[in-house]
């Protein structure tokens, strides 16, 4: 597990680069660059372009999403931005506004 966790009480303005798993519950403005699993938890507020291997979203993202493997918007997710991924799911109850590019 290990990896990086940005807790709900923390806000970061700037760039996060991670080779590990990344879990964000707090607030991030800037840029998020992950390589493995990136999880945006419920209550998180991300105003940033987000990239990663597998992206799981339960919180709010304003910015473009770019995943090497897949993006899952789960219930409660709120995303404004474009999504580029090989696989992409939007669960019932997730809000999404933007373009999708799935490398057809």
């Amino acid at each position, binding site marked *: 597990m290990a990896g990086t966790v940005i807790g709900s009480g923390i806000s970061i303005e700037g*760039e996060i680069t991670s080779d590990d798993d990344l879990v964000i519950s*707090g607030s991030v403005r800037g840029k998020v660059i992950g390589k493995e699993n990136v999880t945006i938890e419920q209550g998180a507020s991300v105003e940033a372009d987000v990239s990663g291997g597998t992206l799981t979203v339960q919180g709010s993202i304003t910015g473009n999403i770019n995943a090497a493997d897949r993006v899952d918007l789960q219930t409660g997710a709120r995303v404004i931005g474009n999504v580029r991924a090989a696989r992409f799911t939007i669960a019932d109850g997730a809000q999404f506004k933007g373009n999708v590019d799935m490398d057809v």
Partner: protein
Amino acid sequence: MTDVTVIGQGTTVRGRVSGAASLEIQGHVDGEISIEGELTIERDGLVSANVDARVIIVRGAVKGDLVAHDLVSLEAGARVVGDLKAPRIAIAQGALVRGQVQAGGGGSSSKLTSRASKPAMRVESAPRAATPARSEVKPAPRTVPSVLAGARGTNGSSAHASERKAPPPVVPVLKKVKGAIAKRR
């Protein structure tokens, strides 16, 4: 679980980290950290930032000033280049520090003053300027015997008295100190 913030080993944060929570750093942070909780910089952690927190515990490397409102604790393996300021400061054996240490006196007014009056703090380093005074003592015994010897040989004691005043080696020593400060910067 998600209330604990951990910057893991493979993670780099560039920018400002703030908030009311506690923070543990095993990776890299480059920028500024200002939190109301406890900051722990672990063994592999590398922080290049001015840090402001309630409690700061360092086991890794820091380049920047540490200001705590309660406690700064440098544990074995800590390497800090920067000034420390807190009501309580602990430096354990095996910790390395280069910078001014200011313990006691509420750290609450610290944040602005420490940054705004940084040059003033350096000037204010009168206790540091006291070190030349200490080394001033060293040359004194050297010169005194020679002066005494001269006084025995000749009666021109006034000339020798001025000689005694003449060689205060303060200037080269001060230069060294200034050099040290410049190096630190």
